[in-house]
Every structure is written in C-alpha cells, then in structure tokens.
C-alpha cells in the first residue's frame, strides 16, 4: 500500500450482511464484513468451504438469486452505493466496470456459442462497438493473456479448447472492458498445477498492467500467498483477520489463521520431521452459529468472554485487523496440540525391507474407436490410449509409495490395474508373490481381501442407502474374516480406531461431514485387514483442516497395522509429507522414482523440476525457481515418440543439437542411487547441476 488514497477505494464494504430466505426463516450467510480494495491491489479472501466467500462475491454483483439479499451494510463501488442498484444501472456495471471469473470455465462458457461471439458481445453491448472492431479487440486481448493462435480460438466452441485455455478466455473476456474491479472466485481450483501456475502468473501480470483491483477468492493458502497483496481470512460468514500477505503468513493473529497454517504441510516437510495439526470440530452451519466468537468452539485459547461476547474486527497497532478478544495476548508458540491428536512417532521407514508389491514393465492400453467410416464398421486401424507405459517399481511392506502427476498422467489407471479393476495389457505384477496381472474377477477372494482401496470423493465414497455399520461390516461378511456374531463388535472397534465412536454405527452417510465419510471409507478399506491399501487422492477434496486429520489417521493406521500404502495425490506438498518413496508420472510414463526426500532435491527430472516450481507455497517468503511448461499435455492416443515429455521439456536444449535424440529415442533410466532413478536423456552430471527449486531466503531444503 504504497499509493496515497487520493481516490476512493474501488470497492469498499462496510458491515455487510447477506441473508438467504429459506423455508421457515432466514439464514445470514455472511455478516459483519468490511474491507476495501484499491486500484492495482489484490485482496485474497481465504477460508474453508461454507465460510461465505462466494456469497460475498455475488453480493458485490447483486446476484444473489431470488431468495438472497444484502441485509445490512453498504457496498460502495468507486464511491457509488451498490446495494439497491437494480435493472439497467446494475446491468451497465456488470461486465463493464465489474467483471467476474469463476471456478469452472467449462460451465461458465456457453457450450453452443462460438468463443469469439461470447467475447465480442461484451464490447458490442457495453461499448456499442461494431462487430469487426470488437473481434479485433478480442483477439488482442487473447494475445495479451498469452493465448496461442487467438484468431483460431475465436472461431471455436468451448469444448474444443483445453481447460487452461478456457480459463484464459474467461479472463480475457473479463478484462475486455478494462474493469475497475475483477472478482475471481477460485479461478484455478479445477486446473492442474502447472496450468494453475501459468494462470496465476497471468493474473499477477494483469494486475500490474491494468492496474485493476482484484478480489481473489480461494481456499488454497499457497495460491493466496502467490497472488495477493493483502489477505482477508473468513470464517463462518465473518471476516476474522485482514492484513498484508507477508504479515498473515509471518505473524498470523487470529487463532483460526494460525490453525489453518499449521495444518498444511510445507513443501519439503515430511512426516518424520514434522506434524500436521488439524483444527478440531467443524465449521458451524449458518443457522447454528455460537453466540459469542464464532470460532470459540474450536479455539485452543478459549476464554469465558469468547463464549458470550462477540468480538469486533479491530485494528492492531501493526496495522492488521483481527476479530479476536485476545489477539495481542496469544502467542502462537505457546500453542500445544489437543490431547486427542496423537502425533505419530517413529515414522522413518526402511525401504530395503521385504517387497510386498513388485511391478515390472507394466503396460495398460485402451483401444479407441476412430470416427471414420472404416472405424465405425470395424475395419479401421486399431488405436490405443497408452495410459500406462512400462511402469516398474517395488514396494516394501509398511512403506508408502506416493504417485504424483497431473490429470491424465495415468496414476489412477496404474492403481486400477494393480487392484484389478482393469486388466493388464502386458508386463508383470506380483503382490505377495501372486501374479496380479489378471482382473479382479479371476482373483482369489483371499487375495482380493489383502488389496483394498480408499477413494477420493467423500460424497461418493459411501453408498447413501446404507448405514455406516452396514457398509463397514459388508467386507467382513464378504470375506468372512470375522464370525457373524462378532461383526458388530469389530465394526465398533474400527469406528473407535477412526475416532468416530459406536454411535456412528446407525448413521446414514448424509448425516456425516466430509471428513467423517472419508474416515468411514478408510474403515471399510481396513475392515478386511488388507496388506496393501491404495489411496486415490484421499484428501484432495477435503478442507485443509480436515485433510490434516485424515493424513494423521492414515499414518497412525499404517503404524499400527504395518499396512503398505500407495498414495496418489496431485498436491506435491502432501505427497512429500506422506510418502517414503515417490514416483512422478507424465503421460503414462514414470519419469522419476525414488525416496521422497531425493525427489524434492536435485538431481531432478526436468518434469519434476517444473512441477515443483509450479506448486503454490503458503509462504510468501519462499523463492521458487521460475520454470513454466509450454503448451498443453499431448493426447495419450498418440503420445510423442522418444521421450514423452520432449514436446514441453524446458531442459532439452542442454543436450547437443537441441535434444534431437529426445524426439526419437526412448530415454534411459539414470540410476542416481539404488532407489532413485530418472528417466531422461540428460546425463546424471547435468541433472545433478540443477539448482534447488525452492529456496527460503537463507535456508535450503
């Protein structure tokens, strides 16, 4: 905030409350929110789901549906009151002065209109521009958001371009009229990490270039750290803390902010050396908020006053704003974990132990049908999606293999093949010494029992029609691991182990929170006491505070049962924290595999390096190497010859004649150590020379 406030702030909210009318009453989704955003400034708004972040955005645009309205307070846009503005006046503001970008670009674009038409109408309607002129403007704007081949994109329909490109179009469309205020609601959440990085770069550029005020809503602390100048933390409909981005991360004042930061693993942290601390309890529903401080039920520093007196948002001497009675008195370092949080111990694993799963040159191809006449009648050339190509690894009992990679890299197919939901095209796979290249239908029940899975989406991991007890007991009945009359007791034992308790036995999934459902999912996977549990992104759909709890639970279980885990995630920090061994996949190919700490330090595979540099890190002091991948992931139907990464590899030119060899020849495995291998043409020496991606002002990780 170097600027002098000569002009009024672009957006100023004062004690805003937004309410929705529902049957039998009214719910205040947002209350007591005040903040302002100036030109050239990005206010990041963070908070877990259900905190009222998006409602706030819609309230600014006065788009709250039939049943929502701004109940109190004022929203001023460039000094002009927005509350109560309707009709033509409102319409003129929208899309012209205030633009918005939100989460799913595919949903946000009209599927049956050409992109050019969707963009240019913003200009023709608001500025009365001629169509050709407008299109010219649009193309310029597309160029400015680094959209390749802008003229061509204008003629296309949304489904014909990739997700990242769609988001660029949406952003370009929002910027067409040079709006004073840009509202972005989770614009990168649906994107892969390398694409996300590029879009975040773009947003940062645009802010500088256009001098726009940006209201940036996200749940991701790392993203906020990267794009924001100031941050507002929301909790249960209230703004609990507001400060500069550096201040927030360095010196969080509100217990909730502190809790949030404590429960995300830092990139480089691992389970052996650090602990994640979840926030206990859950966000109260809007109709059942506590009388006093909204955070009080979950606060570690709770005092009597917090219970019955609602704190006001107040400015501390250092300039940051906090809604806490005791902000000055709280010393984060005095915080101690709750009793119920066990901190797992002795987590160092021996990777050289007994191998439980051995995979060698595993391949999984899917046949695809073409669209030509020949293909339709079955005479066309057969083509394949090469979903997994020559995957090889070993897994020691009791250890964790983390698999990372962007969507479509084949990590899900890999575990589906291992578990037998897909049969294997070729290669070897042995589990406990048994061949598991066959499909699950052909496997022995006792083998199936040893291989179980935990799933990603808490909302779909449980069958809504059955109670928790029924679902956990089903594997026991099916595998007959427990005598019939003891099943109930066994289930309750498991529920206890999941920290759920016996009273959950008769509950239906719809009565559980996301984290609870995920715990039941884990309990179900463990019910047959499997040796190997495959976890497919088990925490990525969860809020950070819950995510930490689940990760802890998994660690605990692993320790108790000596279970072996395969852990898939796209969040590199989580994988680093959780895994003993990590495999990096790209387009069906394992690019690098090795002990977790080795992957996150040089020598890197160029792809791993790019990934690491793209990860948003929730610490504004951290410096990341700037590496951005060109283009998008090629189709798996016709993967590039040679090294599959060669089309996008930023390090290719380190090889003689620009890496011709990468285009034609399959790279060799470079053995860095017994466990650490890199699939690259670059010689080990060059790989070793790479600088670390992440550096913290002083210390290196």
């Amino acid at each position, binding site marked *: 905030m170097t600027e002098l406030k000569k002009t009024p702030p672009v957006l100023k909210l004062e004690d805003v409350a937004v309410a929705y009318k529902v049957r039998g009453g009214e719910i205040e989704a947002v209350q007591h929110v005040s903040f302002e955003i100036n030109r050239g400034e990005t206010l990041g708004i963070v908070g877990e789901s259900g905190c009222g972040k998006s409602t706030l955005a819609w309230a600014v645009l006065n788009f709250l549906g039939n049943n929502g309205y701004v109940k109190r307070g004022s929203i001023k846009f460039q000094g002009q009151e927005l509350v109560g503005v309707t009709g033509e006046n409102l319409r003129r503001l929208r899309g012209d002065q205030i633009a918005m970008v939100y989460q799913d670009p595919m949903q946000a674009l009209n599927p049956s209109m050409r992109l050019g038409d969707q963009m240019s109408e913003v200009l023709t309607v608001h500025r009365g521009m001629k169509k050709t002129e407008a299109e010219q403007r649009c193309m310029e704007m597309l160029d400015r958001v680094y959209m390749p081949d802008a003229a061509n994109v204008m003629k296309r329909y949304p489904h014909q371009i990739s997700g990242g490109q769609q988001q660029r179009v949406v952003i370009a469309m929002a910027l067409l009229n040079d709006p004073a205020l840009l509202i972005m609601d989770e614009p990168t959440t649906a994107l892969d990490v390398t694409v996300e990085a590029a879009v975040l770069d773009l947003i940062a550029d645009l802010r500088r270039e256009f001098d726009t005020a940006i209201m940036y809503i996200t749940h991701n602390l790392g993203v906020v750290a990267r794009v924001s100048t100031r941050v507002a933390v929301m909790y249960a409909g209230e703004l609990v803390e507001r400060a500069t981005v550096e201040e927030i991360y360095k010196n969080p004042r509100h217990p909730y902010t502190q809790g949030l930061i404590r429960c995300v693993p830092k990139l480089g942290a691992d389970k052996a050396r650090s602990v994640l601390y979840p926030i206990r309890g859950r966000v109260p529903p809007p109709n059942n908020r506590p009388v006093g401080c909204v955070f009080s039920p979950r606060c570690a520093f709770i005092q009597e006053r917090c219970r019955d007196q609602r704190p006001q948002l107040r400015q501390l001497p250092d300039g940051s704003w906090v809604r806490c009675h005791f902000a000055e008195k709280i010393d984060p370092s005095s915080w101690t974990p709750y009793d119920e949080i066990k901190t797992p111990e002795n987590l160092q694993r021996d990777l050289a132990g007994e191998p439980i799963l051995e995979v060698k040159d595993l391949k999984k191809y899917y046949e695809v049908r073409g669209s030509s006449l020949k293909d339709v009648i079955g005479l066309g050339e057969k083509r394949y999606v090469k979903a997994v190509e020559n995957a090889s690894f070993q897994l020691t009992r009791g250890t964790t293999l983390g698999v990372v990679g962007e969507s479509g890299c084949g990590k899900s197919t890999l575990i589906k093949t291992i578990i037998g*939901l897909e049969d294997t095209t070729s290669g070897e796979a042995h589990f406990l010494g048994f061949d598991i290249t066959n499909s*699950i239908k052909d496997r022995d029940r006792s083998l199936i029992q040893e291989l179980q*899975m935990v799933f990603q*989406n808490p909302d*779909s*991991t449980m*069958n*809504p029609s059955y109670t928790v007890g029924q679902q956990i007991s089903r594997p026991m009945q*099916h595998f007959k691991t427990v005598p019939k009359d003891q099943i109930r007791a066994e289930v309750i034992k498991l529920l206890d182990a999941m920290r759920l308790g016996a009273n959950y036995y008769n509950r239906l999934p719809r009565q559980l929170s996301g984290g609870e459902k995920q715990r039941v999912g884990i309990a*179900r996977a463990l019910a047959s006491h499997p040796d190997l549990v495959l976890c497919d992104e088990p925490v990525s759909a969860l809020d950070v505070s819950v995510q930490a709890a689940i990760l802890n639970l998994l660690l605990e279980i692993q320790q108790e049962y000596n279970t072996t885990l395969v852990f898939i995630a796209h969040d590199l920090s989580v994988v680093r924290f959780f895994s003993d061994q990590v495999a990096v996949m790209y387009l069906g190919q394992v690019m690098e595999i090795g002990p977790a700490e080795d992957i996150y330090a040089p020598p890197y595979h160029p792809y791993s390096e790019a990934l690491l540099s793209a990860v948003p890190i929730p610490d504004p002091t951290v410096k990341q190497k700037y590496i951005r991948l060109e283009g998008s992931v090629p189709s798996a139907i016709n993967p590039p010859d040679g090294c599959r990464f060669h089309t996008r590899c930023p390090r290719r030119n380190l090889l003689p004649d620009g890496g011709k060899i990468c285009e034609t020849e399959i790279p060799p495995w470079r053995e860095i150590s017994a466990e650490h291998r890199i699939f690259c043409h670059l010689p080990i020496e060059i790989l070793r020379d790479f600088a670390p991606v992440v550096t913290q002002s002083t210390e290196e990780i």
Partner: protein
Amino acid sequence: MAVKTILQPISQPSRLQKMWQSTSIIFESRVATVGMAMVLFWVILAFLSLFWTPYDPNASDFLQNQGPSVQNWLGTDHLGRDILSRLMQGTQVILLKTRLPGDGGISIPGGVAIWGVIGSLSLGAILGLNAGYRGGWWDQVIMQVLDALIAFPQIVLYLVVIAALGQGDLVVILAITITGAPGVARLARSLAMDIKTRDYIRAAETRGESVWYIMFWEILPNARGPLLVDGMLRVGYAIFAIGTLGFLGIGLPPPDPDWGNMVNEARRNIFSNQLAVIWPALAISTLVIGLNLFADGLREEMTRYQK
C-alpha cells in the same frame, strides 16, 4: 418411500419417527401435497367401494340418463345405473384388483395399472441396470432392443398385443409392461451409468462383489427415488392408456365398469346427458393430474435436497 431428508445429527430415531421423516418430505412441497390429496381421494374411494357403493353399480334401478339428484349424486347412465357407484367400482380394477382369467372369478390384489407399472419397473430396471452398469456389448444389445420397442407408438403396440392375445386384465398388464419397460430401462440405465462412477461402486468392485450384487444392492437402492417417481408418473400414463383402450372398446373386459368405456357409452347419449361423459373423464384427469403433481413435487423436493 424413497425420499431422503437431511437431518441434523440425531440419536437413534424410532421406527415411527423414521417413517414420519420419510413422508414429511411430501408435505414440504405444496405441489406434492395437493397431488397426494387428489390421489388419496381416489384410493380411499377405491377401498370404500370394496365394502360400499351407494347402489349396485351394475343394476339398472333408476330412470335412464338423469342428471345429478339427491338420490343419484352424479346422475344415472343410459341404462339407469348410478354413475357414482360405477365410478367408484371403476377404481378397483385400475388400482386394487386384477381379475385372473378363468371361471373362478378370482382376483389378486393390486390393480391393472399398478401391476403394469410394477412390471415395467422390474423389467426396465433389470434391463437398464445391465445396460448401464455392464456397458459395452450388453449395453449395445439391450439398447438396440429397447430402441426397437420404443419405436412402436404405444397405442399401436397395445393394439397389436391385444389383437394378438385378446382382451383381459393380464393382457393389459402385459401391454403396459412392454410399453413402459423401455422408458424405465432408459432411466435406469442413465442412473446406473451415473451411479457406477461413484466411488462406493469402485469399493464394491475392489471387494470382488458379483455383478448382480453391485447392480441390485449397490446401485438399485440409490436409483430407487427417481425410479419410483417415474413409476408414479407411469401409473398416470397407464390409467390414461387403460381409459383410451376402454374408449376404443378393447380395454378391460366387463362386468366391472371401465372409465374409458363409460365415456364411450355416455358419448352416444351425450345429447341427453353431457355430465355422464364428464364424470369419468374428470375421474381420469384428476387421478392423472394428482399423480403428476405428486411425482413432480417429490422430484423437485428430492433434487432440492440433493443440492
């Protein structure tokens, strides 16, 4: 009832509470409440007619083609029979009983429309689940067959079935089953295709559960709601179709009054008694509208909760 409610964490609800909770969703929606009232009206009349009708529905005890009076609330038909009694009796064979062929005059509980829809639901669910869940070759074959069936204009299929098999309650049930099954199957298929992407299906598969277990114990309970709503709409269609067949003179055989046939007979006397056409027409319409509203309301309520 396949309806779901969101509940705040609760302790063990009693069975009665559970039932109330699952029915209470109906009263959440005004549309569903109105619809249910209309349907209940006819269901109650149907049950009542088992024990009591104002007069013998088949007895020609009165003057012909009389308008409503204190004696005959809805008037009399062309044979001097009490229309109200006939309307009431007419509900039975639609909703409450199916007459088996043979001399015994044996009836089984459950009306022709109900059994027909149960038939379509069962057949359609089996086909749709197999097509949707198994996919591939199963899907191709089943959908091809269903496409063929769906291509028949319904009334033509009815005509062909009845031309081939003759009149009778069971034939009408069969016709309703055959004409309804493709629609149910399509719905069941799309539901199965949606539900099969859920992780709990993956979980069942990774347990090595059999295909039939997955289809009927994992998928079907979750497809139950939309299928039941669809079934309810189908009862409406079936009543409509039975009425049409009755009007064309090839519907449910006598002696029980058939609403469609009542319209057809009354039509010939329309100059002496227009109301005699209106009453059975109104009966068909209100029952169909009631079922529609009930189903619409429930569906709306269910999607509201899903959101």
